[in-house]
C-alpha cells in the first residue's frame, strides 16, 4: 500500500543579491532616476583600494638593532622649502594640516585647526576661498593656497603667509575644480570670493594665466619675486601620473611637492569623480620618489603625501616609502568632532549615521564643522576642538616614533623601504616592497 504524499513546498534558494548590483548601486540608480542630477558629496573615495594597511614593518631582531622606547631619541622634525626659499618652514612633527577652505569649513573649525596644529609645532593651510583672520591669527605656520579660482587672493595675505601652495589638483578629483553649493555661500563667504550670495559656485579647474610646466616656472618666479624669495613654494597635485607630474613640478622650481591620493577628502565633488578618477595614495608614492631620485632632488625638494592618512603607522609607512611629511584633512576633521556618535540623533534626522555622513556640501553639519550656519558652527568650541586635534597629532607622532624605534631608527626619516613588506601582491607591486615572507617584488624581478 502506498502512503499518501504529504505536500511540501518545493525547496527555495535564499534571496540572493547581486554583487554587481548591490544595495548602494541600486539606490544610486533610483536616486539618479528620480532627480536627474549626479550625486554630490564630501569626503574621499569610499571603495576599498590597496592601502597602508597592506604593508607591515619588519622591526628589528638579530640582524637589526632596535632603539629603546621612551628613552632613546627619535627625531620627528622636518624642514620644508630649503631648496630656494630664504625662510623655509621648520616643523616639529612631519604631519601637517591639509588645505581646506573657509567656506567649506566654518570659521570656528579653521580656528580649531590652527590652534591644534600650532600647539604641536606644525602648519595648517588655507583653501579655495582666501585667508581668514581667524586662521592666520591662530596658526603659527600658515600655508596660503594659490588656486585656479584665486578667490580672495591678494598680495597682503601672500606676504603674511609662511609658504605658498600652488594647487594644480586634488586626489579626490584630479582635473576638477572646487565646488561650493549655494547653501554655504553666506554673506561673509560671498564677500571673500567676490561672488553673489547663495549661488552654486564652481571654481575653475585650470589656472587662468598659465598653461603647462613652462608657464608654471614663470608663475613660480613671479610669486617668488612678489615675496622677495622668502617663502617656500609648494606645488600640489592629485595622484594621476605622479612620476611625470612630480618631475615637472620640480623642473618648474617647486621647493616642496604635495601629492594627494584618491582617498583624499574633498568638501564637495561628484561621487562618480571621487570614486573613479585618480590612483590610490599607496600607488603614487614610489613613482613620485623615483622622479625625485632620478633628478637628484630626493630630500632636497620635500615630498608631502596625503590621502587617507589615519594614524602614526600610516605616517611611518609614507616616510619609509620616501616622503618627508604627510598632510591630513579628513582625520583632522574627525579629531575636531566630525561624524561623532554624540550627534547620532542629528545624523538620523539627516537620513544617515555617524561615520557615513558626507553631505558636507549641504551645510547642515551637526558637528558645526562643514557648515556656515551660525547656530551649527557655534556648536564647535575652537579651543576644545583644537586641544583634541593637538592630542591626536601627538598620538600620531608618538606612534610613528614607536615604529621607527622598533626598526632601530633615531629619526623617523631614517625609515626606508627595506623596513617594509606587503600583505598582498597588489600592495607589493604598488609600494615596491616584497610580499611578506618572500623576496618577490612584483614587476621588479622573477618570482
Amino acid at each position: 500500500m502506498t502512503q499518501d504524499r504529504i505536500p511540501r513546498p518545493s525547496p527555495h534558494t535564499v534571496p540572493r543579491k547581486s554583487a554587481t548590483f548591490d544595495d548602494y548601486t541600486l539606490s544610486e540608480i533610483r536616486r539618479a532616476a528620480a532627480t536627474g542630477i549626479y550625486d554630490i558629496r564630501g569626503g574621499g573615495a569610499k571603495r576599498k583600494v590597496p592601502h597602508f594597511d597592506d604593508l607591515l614593518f619588519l622591526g628589528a631582531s638579530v640582524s637589526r638593532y632596535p632603539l629603546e622606547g621612551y628613552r632613546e631619541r627619535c627625531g620627528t622634525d622636518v624642514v620644508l622649502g630649503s631648496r630656494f626659499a630664504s625662510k623655509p618652514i621648520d616643523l616639529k612633527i612631519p604631519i601637517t594640516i591639509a588645505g581646506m577652505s573657509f567656506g567649506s569649513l566654518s570659521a570656528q573649525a579653521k580656528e580649531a585647526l590652527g590652534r591644534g596644529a600650532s600647539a604641536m609645532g606644525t602648519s595648517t593651510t588655507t583653501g579655495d576661498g582666501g585667508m581668514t583672520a581667524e586662521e592666520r591669527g591662530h596658526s603659527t605656520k600658515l600655508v596660503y593656497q594659490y588656486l585656479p579660482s584665486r578667490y580672495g587672493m591678494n598680495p597682503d595675505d601672500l606676504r603674511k603667509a609662511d609658504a605658498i601652495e600652488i594647487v594644480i589638483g586634488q586626489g579626490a578629483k584630479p582635473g576638477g575644480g572646487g565646488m561650493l553649493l549655494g547653501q554655504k555661500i553666506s554673506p561673509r563667504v560671498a564677500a571673500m570670493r567676490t561672488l553673489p550670495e547663495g549661488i552654486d559656485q564652481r571654481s575653475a579647474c585650470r589656472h587662468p594665466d598659465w598653461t603647462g610646466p613652462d608657464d608654471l616656472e614663470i608663475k613660480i618666479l613671479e610669486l617668488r619675486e612678489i615675496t622677495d624669495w622668502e617663502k617656500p613654494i609648494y606645488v600640489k597635485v592629485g595622484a594621476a601620473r605622479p612620476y611625470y607630474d612630480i618631475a615637472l613640478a620640480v623642473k618648474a622650481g617647486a621647493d616642496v611637492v604635495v601629492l594627494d591620493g584618491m582617498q583624499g577628502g574633498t568638501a564637495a565633488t561628484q561621487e562618480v569623480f571621487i570614486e573613479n578618477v585618480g590612483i590610490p595614495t599607496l600607488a603614487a608614492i614610489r613613482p613620485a620618489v623615483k622622479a625625485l631620485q632620478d633628478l637628484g632632488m630626493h630630500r632636497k625638494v620635500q615630498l608631502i603625501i596625503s590621502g587617507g592618512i589615519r594614524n602614526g603607522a600610516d605616517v611611518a609607512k609614507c616616510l619609509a616609502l620616501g616622503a618627508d611629511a604627510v598632510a591630513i584633512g579628513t582625520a583632522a576633521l574627525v579629531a575636531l568632532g566630525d561624524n561623532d556618535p554624540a550627534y547620532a540623533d542629528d545624523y538620523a534626522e539627516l537620513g544617515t549615521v555617524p561615520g557615513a555622513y558626507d553631505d558636507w556640501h549641504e551645510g547642515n553639519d551637526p558637528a558645526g564643522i562643514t557648515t556656515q550656519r551660525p547656530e551649527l558652527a557655534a556648536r564647535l568650541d575652537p579651543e576644545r576642538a583644537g586641544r583634541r586635534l593637538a592630542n591626536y597629532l601627538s598620538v600620531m607622532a608618538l606612534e610613528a616614533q614607536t615604529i621607527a624605534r622598533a626598526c632601530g631608527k633615531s629619526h623617523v626619516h631614517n625609515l626606508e623601504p627595506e623596513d617594509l613588506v606587503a600583505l598582498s601582491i597588489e600592495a607589493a607591486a604598488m609600494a615596491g616592497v616584497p610580499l611578506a615572507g618572500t623576496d618577490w617584488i612584483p614587476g621588479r624581478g622573477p618570482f
Partner: protein
Amino acid sequence: MTAQDLTIDLASTTLRQLNQALHRLAPDTNQRYWRVLNPRGGHALAAGLDAPVKVEIDGHVGYYCAGMNKLATVIVNGNAGVGVAENMMSGLVHVRGDASQAAGATAHGGMLVIDGNASARCGISMKGIDIVVKGSIGHMSAFMGQAGTLTVLGDAGEALGDSLYEARLFVRGSVASLGADCVEKEMRDEHRAELGARLEAAGLAGTVDVAEFRRYGSARQLYNFHIDNVY
C-alpha cells in the same frame, strides 16, 4: 643706484635687484618716479609693488608685468606678455603696445589700459578691475568674470563673457560670439554714466561716444545648478 638716480638699466641690473628696490619703498617715499631700460621681455617686472610710485618701462615686457600691483602706476612703453597686471588690487597699469593673453586676469581693482589689442582671455576671472582696451580682444575674454568692467573700443573674439558672473562688459565693435550665459543687455543711463567714467579715467574723455557701445552681462542662468543648463 643712489636715491637720485632712479633709472634702472636691466642690461646691468638683475630683475631681483629691481623688484627688491621697488619693494623697499615706503608709502611716503620721495623716490616716486622710476624709469626701467632694456627690459628685453623679462618676466615679473615690477611685480608686487605696494607704494604710490610711477614706474615707466621702456621696451617690451614678458609675463606677469606689474602682477599683484597695489597703488603704483606702471607704464609699459612696448608690448606686454601673458598676464600683465594679473591680480592687481589698485593703481594703474598702462600698456602702450599690445598685450598677450590673460591681461588683467583675476584682478580685484585698479585700472588696466591697453592702447593696442589684447589677446585671448583678457580679464579672465576678473574680480573688480576696470580694463579699457583701445583695440580688440581675443577669444574667451572675461571668462568667469566676477566683478569690474571690461571696455573694448574695437571688436571682441569668440565666447565673450563665457560663464560670466557680475563683471560688466562694454564693446564698441563687433562680438564674434557670446559665451555660455552671456547676453546683450539694455544700455541705460546708469551704464552710460559708468562707461563714461571709465573712459574718462583712461584718458579718453570726449574722444569716444558712449552711445556707440553695447553692453553685455550675465543672464544668471548658471547661478544655480539645473540639469537643463548642462552644455
